[in-house]
């Protein structure tokens, strides 16, 4: 399942919505991304812009790719947009499988692909002014390894 939303999410609720439906889920892999305050720049806020409809299409595509590659009972991506503050949750990836290996690998894959293939752009508002976050070489490498 895919959710692109402005509002926050509750990890327990989101996970139990799925595990309560299937008692054969033995392993759940989860990744949560938060806004970091940063060591030097003193971040005040971060605004996530996205490309509505294309975002949902891309997340759906990435999620389906994970389901093709690993034996998953279910998987979930929640990605927020709008203005967020240090400590706020940005993204949730959760993968549900009978056994842990599939869940953990798929979880890592999903967050790696989201980094470079989900149409979001991050504007950091800090002491240094407003700066658009640039693509990282390490993220491109991480996406390409799959």
């Amino acid at each position, binding site marked *: 399942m895919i959710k692109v939303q402005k509002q926050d999410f509750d990890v327990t609720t989101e996970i139990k919505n799925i595990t309560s439906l299937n008692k054969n889920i033995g392993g759940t892999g989860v990744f949560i*991304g938060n806004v970091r305050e940063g060591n030097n720049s003193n971040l005040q806020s971060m605004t996530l*812009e996205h*490309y509505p*409809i*294309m975002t949902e*299409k891309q997340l759906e595509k990435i999620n389906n790719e994970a389901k093709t590659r690993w034996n998953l009972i279910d998987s979930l991506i929640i*990605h927020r947009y709008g203005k967020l503050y240090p400590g706020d949750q*940005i*993204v949730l990836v959760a993968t549900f499988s009978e056994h842990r290996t599939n869940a953990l690998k798929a979880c890592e894959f999903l*967050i790696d692909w*989201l*980094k*470079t*293939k*989900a*149409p*979001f*752009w*991050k*504007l950091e508002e800090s002491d240094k002014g407003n700066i*658009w*976050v*640039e*693509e990282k070489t390490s*993220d491109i490498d991480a996406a390409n390894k799959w």
Partner: protein
Amino acid sequence: MQIKYFSWVKEQIGVDAENITLKDNIETIIDLINHLKSKNEKYNRAFKDISIIRCAVNMEVTNLDEKINDNDEIAFFPPMTGG
């Protein structure tokens, strides 16, 4: 044809979307970019370094040599930074 802009591409051009009618000599995205650059300095600046411009045709990421036509939705943006 509708064109959408995101992130600093949008900021430099000054609008988030616009409609244009394709001229006959515009066949690919790169033709479209050259056409836009000829309009004024804002476009020229936004598209100065084409290596950091990404684009989508009808919400699918494509290369700049992709053929386009009048009822496509085109989008220009910097590399994506999701997650």
